[in-house]
Structures are given as structure tokens and as C-alpha cells.
């Protein structure tokens, strides 16, 4: 049995002596040879062929893995082998978030007792489930076999959950044109103004500009420029990234521009997300004139003006309440 000699032997008599300590390894180099006997040997032989078998007891129970004797009675088992699984159901599980050197996987995994289909006892093995949230009693699992099998319990590298979810790719490309009304609105955006449409019959200013009134259906004859300042009516804090937003979290808000009667949806920036509030006064932040195109990207976002909050309870200034 190899034992290494102690390393740090003090040589200076005045120094406090370090405690003597030696590394000592207990090992059977190459492993310890064990006979399997006929019952366990049959199980391991089947395992090498990627089959899982149990053995039937006199009481008609199927033991998996097979034992030589029925643990309930001590009687010899019948010698009748039954293929079980390979799928099974997790009964009990424990989650290892930091695998140890001797563990079967080098990433977080679960130990589990698994009742294989057709078995009356449970197999203790490993489930590679990704995260503990994927584990539950009742989870259906199947073995993942090693590429090379040798007749060893670890021929099953681990069990993995049955397929319950797939990811379906969806992608289509289009060429879209904005239409007459939006083109007109974007012309205004290019020039640094918000163009609205006024319905005289309804006495409502719609922003963005439209060519007909969504309320009465009549043709909108009159353009109205509205201010680039407004009031946050309501808002949402978004935590999922969006290519149109500069960062996460970002705030998208319904902003009622001064002079308009319906709010427009836009980003709010220049303020921490949790400080955005209903009634907050905001102003559009434009990109420099030389960078402007016919695109809403001309407006980075709306930022607080610093004015006192507006009172939303009084209804909309334009009378749209």
C-alpha cells in the first residue's frame, strides 16, 4: 500500500514544528475483481446488449435490478427473466448541484429511484435533467446508453426525461410598405414634427396621422402638428430584450402628446425603469437633424421634462374621456 513520505519536515529547531502529515492512498490498482454469480451476471450481460431485465420471484414480483433471493421472503428467485422499461417513472429524487469527483456526471444532476415499466421495485440511478426544476416525482425517463457497453451498471450513462416539448422553427420574410397615412406621418418625423389628423365631426386629433376617422369613418381633411411633449398615461417594464430597445429592462409607454386625443406607444428613457410613473411629463429625444430618415428611430425615446406630473384623473385635455 503506497504511502508518500512526509514533505514539510522542520529543519529549524527554533521554528514551531509543523504537525507531521503523510498522504496515504488505499487503492486496488485496476479495480477489485468480483464474481457476479448467475443472477447479477445475467442482468449485466443483458445490460451490455442494451436491455434491462428483472427477475420474477415466486410471489410473481419482478425485481429490478435482480437479486438472488426475494428480500421479502428469503426464497430463491425463479430464474425467469423479464425485460422491463427501458422507460420508467421517477419515484424519489435528490438534486446534486455541485458534483463530487466520484460522481457519474460532471454537471448538476439528480439521484433518483426509478420504477421501470414492468418492474415492482425501483432502480437507483442518475437523471440528467438540466436543472432541478425539471425534476419531479412522476417524471417519465429513459436510459441514455454509453457508446461502448461492457456489462456494468454504468452502461446506462444516466436517464433522461422523455420528450414532452419540442422547439419549432418559425421564420418568414416580407417586404412591407407603410401606406399613405403612415408615409405622411413619417415625412413629418423626418422633419422633426408629429403630424396628426383632425376629424372635425368628432373633434378628435389622431396621432399618428390617419386618412380616415376610426370613430365615424369619414375622411380626415385636416392635418394638425402636435407638440413633441406629452404625458405618460400608462406603461410597462419589459425584461425581455427587444432589438428596438437599447437595453433591458426598458419601458414602453402610452404617451398622450400635447394637442393629441389618443396616446401613442413609445419608449421612455433617460430615467431608471422603476421611477417611471403615470402622469409623468416627457419630451421626445430626437437624433441630430443630419441623421434623420423616414423612420421612428429618429426618436431615441421620450425622456422626463422635469415638469410637475399631470393630473390624469381629470380626463384627457382634449375631452376624449
Amino acid at each position, binding site marked *: 500500500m503506497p504511502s508518500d513520505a512526509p514533505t514539510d519536515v522542520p529543519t529549524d529547531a527554533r521554528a514551531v514544528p509543523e*504537525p507531521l502529515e503523510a498522504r*496515504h*492512498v*488505499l487503492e486496488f490498482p485496476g479495480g*477489485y475483481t*468480483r464474481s*457476479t454469480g448467475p443472477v*447479477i451476471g445475467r442482468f*449485466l450481460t443483458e445490460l451490455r446488449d442494451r436491455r434491462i431485465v428483472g427477475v420474477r420471484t415466486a410471489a410473481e414480483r419482478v*425485481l*429490478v*435490478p435482480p*437479486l438472488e433471493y426475494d*428480500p421479502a421472503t428469503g426464497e430463491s428467485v425463479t430464474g425467469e427473466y423479464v425485460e422491463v422499461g427501458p422507460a420508467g417513472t421517477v*419515484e*424519489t*429524487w*435528490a*438534486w*446534486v*448541484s455541485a458534483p*463530487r469527483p*466520484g*460522481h*457519474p456526471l460532471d454537471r448538476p444532476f439528480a*439521484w*433518483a*429511484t*426509478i420504477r421501470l415499466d414492468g418492474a415492482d*421495485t*425501483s*432502480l*437507483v*440511478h*442518475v437523471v440528467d435533467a438540466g436543472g*432541478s426544476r425539471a425534476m419531479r416525482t412522476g417524471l417519465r425517463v429513459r436510459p441514455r446508453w454509453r457508446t461502448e457497453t461492457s456489462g*456494468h*451498471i*454504468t452502461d446506462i450513462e444516466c436517464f433522461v426525461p422523455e420528450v414532452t416539448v419540442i422547439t419549432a422553427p418559425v421564420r418568414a420574410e416580407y417586404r412591407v410598405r407603410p401606406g399613405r397615412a403612415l408615409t405622411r406621418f413619417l415625412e413629418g418625423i423626418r422633419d422633426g414634427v408629429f403630424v396628426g389628423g383632425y376629424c372635425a365631426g368628432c373633434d378628435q386629433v389622431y396621432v399618428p396621422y390617419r386618412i380616415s376617422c376610426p370613430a365615424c369613418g369619414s375622411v380626415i381633411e385636416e392635418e394638425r402638428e402636435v407638440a413633441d411633449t406629452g404625458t405618460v398615461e400608462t406603461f410597462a417594464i419589459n425584461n425581455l430584450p427587444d432589438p428596438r430597445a437599447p437595453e433591458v429592462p426598458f419601458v414602453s409607454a402610452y404617451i398622450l402628446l400635447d394637442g393629441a386625443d389618443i396616446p401613442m406607444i413609445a419608449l421612455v428613457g433617460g430615467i431608471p425603469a422603476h421611477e417611471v410613473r403615470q402622469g409623468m411629463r416627457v419630451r421626445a429625444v430626437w437624433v441630430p437633424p443630419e441623421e434623420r430618415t423616414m423612420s421612428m428611430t429618429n426618436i431615441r425615446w421620450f425622456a422626463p421634462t422635469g415638469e410637475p406630473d399631470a393630473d390624469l384623473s381629470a380626463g384627457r385635455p382634449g375631452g376624449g374621456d
Partner: protein
Amino acid sequence: MREVAIVAFAQTVHTGHDTGLTEAEMLHPVIEEVRRTTGLTTFGFTCSGSCDYLAGAPFSFVSALDALGAWPPISESHVEMDGAFALYEAWVRLQHGDIDSALVYGFGKSSTGDLRQIMTLQLDPYYLAPLGLDQVSYAALQAAALGGDRGALDEIVRRSRADGRANPHALDLPDPSGDGYEVEPLRPYDIAPITDGAAAVVLAAGDLARELAENPAYIGGIAHRIEPHYLGMRDLARSPSAADAARAAGVGKGPVDVAELHVQFSHEEIILREALELPEGTVINPSGGPLAANPVMATGLIRVGEAARRILDGRARRAVAHASSGPCLQHNLVTVLESAAESPEGADRG
């Protein structure tokens, strides 16, 4: 059955680290102590419990005999188990009737190796050990099968550690805190600490027991039962073997003032309490139990010693000690200890 009693008990001040003593050096003072207490220098029988894998040395229990002085040759035996099971063997040996005293001891230094991995070596070598299933992982499977209430588990640890702080032989461990998992659902504090230590007990039969102790702790019943080894063949949420052992030892035949249980993981207390059908009023692990000091291979014997001590010093009249072996409470030994007045045969004892 021949009346056999515990007349002396000694244990080390257990440590959470290696103090630099060999096992025999660690053991020697407790042997000295029970010799002083009883005045006996030799014993009719000697039996010890230890595990060679803890130190990684073959026949380390033979080296430990140096702590006794085994010359001229003594009648001696050993179990590769906790010292509590050595006590069972000594009790059986005393039933033969030809000797009146026995020395029992257990010892272990868990600090030397990696206990979690060493305990893998006790598992079935075909189906379990090759998976690398370690001690905390299989205990976590049992905890998950039980599904014990987190508040109740925390309270078991809090109470055990508080009692341990009051026990000069146990470790000083703080109240449990933190919400990380060692292996989910076990938190680090649910697990008994790595501990080095040793313990010794002297058994005496008949008149010798009354000569050696004013108030001997009579073994009113002692029994052990075992379950299948393979975890998938058992209902891990229950311990039928502990229940059977408790019935065979007669736990339910009288009130139980104190129970010392071999609880190495907090959930085991819930399982054992139910299996032993302990009444509400029973004080569990007043020593702090293994959750406050777990010198493996002495821990179960210390349960017997701690239970006996409360009868020897008159604080309890009837006590229960439990010791366990194997994964997930596979093998359980239950001992009922009684003061003379409590035992049915007590009247004969004068």
C-alpha cells in the same frame, strides 16, 4: 434472560478536526476512565466496533488493542460496525453465564479521509457503488422520500445543536442558518458533523452489576433488525426494521423518559420517532445526538452510554437507545435501559 447492566460509560471530548492522536492514543483515556470507575482491570470479554476504511489501514482495530494491554491474551472480538453492535455481541456473550463482565468500545477518526466517499464503499458493489452514490446523496434520497416539513427539520437541528453546546463532549455548532443545499433537499446543517472520538462501556451481570454501580442501567430489552440493502426495494420514508427492533426490545412496555437516537441526518429523527412509537413526552437526544457530535463507529455506542448515564445518575428511570448501520437506516439496534425499580424483575434485585 440473565440480567445485564451498564455500570460505566466514558467518552472523549469529541473534535471536529484531527488532533494528531492515533486511534489507540485517542481510545486509551476512555478505557482508563471506565477501569477507574469500575475498579476492574480485566474483563471476561472485550468487544469493539470500528471500521478499517476510516483510517484506510487493514486491521486497525488490532492496533487499537494496544490501548487495552492485551497480554496475557484476552477473550476478544470485533465488529466492523458501530460499537453499539459490539455491545450487542457482548450482551449475548454474557448470556452464556460463565463470565460476569465485558468491556465494549468504539472509535473512529472521520477527519482522516473523505467520509462521504468512504461510505460509498459499504454499498452493494454491483449496482450502487459503481454509480459513485455517496453518503449524503443516498440520505438525501431518503429525505426526499419522507418529504419532512422544513420547519420541523430546522427545529431538530436547532435543538440538537443547542443541547450539544451544553454537552462538554459534543461540538460547539451555531444555530442552523443558510438556505443552500448540500444535496437537495438536505441543507449542510442537516448533516451530522465530521467528528473524531471514542467511547467505552462496561457491562456487568448479576451481583457484579450491583457491586460496581449504585444504580445500574439494566438492559431490559435489546434487539436488532435489518432491511434489504438495495434502496429501490424499500419504502425509504419508513423504517420497518427499527419498528420491529423496538417491538422486540419492548420499547412500548413502559414510559420512555429519554431516547438517544442515532440521527445522522435531521430527517432520520422523524422516521425513527415514528418507528419507535415514542410518546410525546420523551426527551429526544438530550446530549445533542449525532447532529452535535458524530464520531463514526462510536456514535451508536454513545447513544447507549448517554441513555445509560441518565439512569446511572438517577435522572431517568427508563430510557431507549438506538443505533443504526448501513445506508438509509438499513439496520437498526434498539436497547431499552431501566433502573432496578422499573424492571419487572427489579424486585429481586434488592
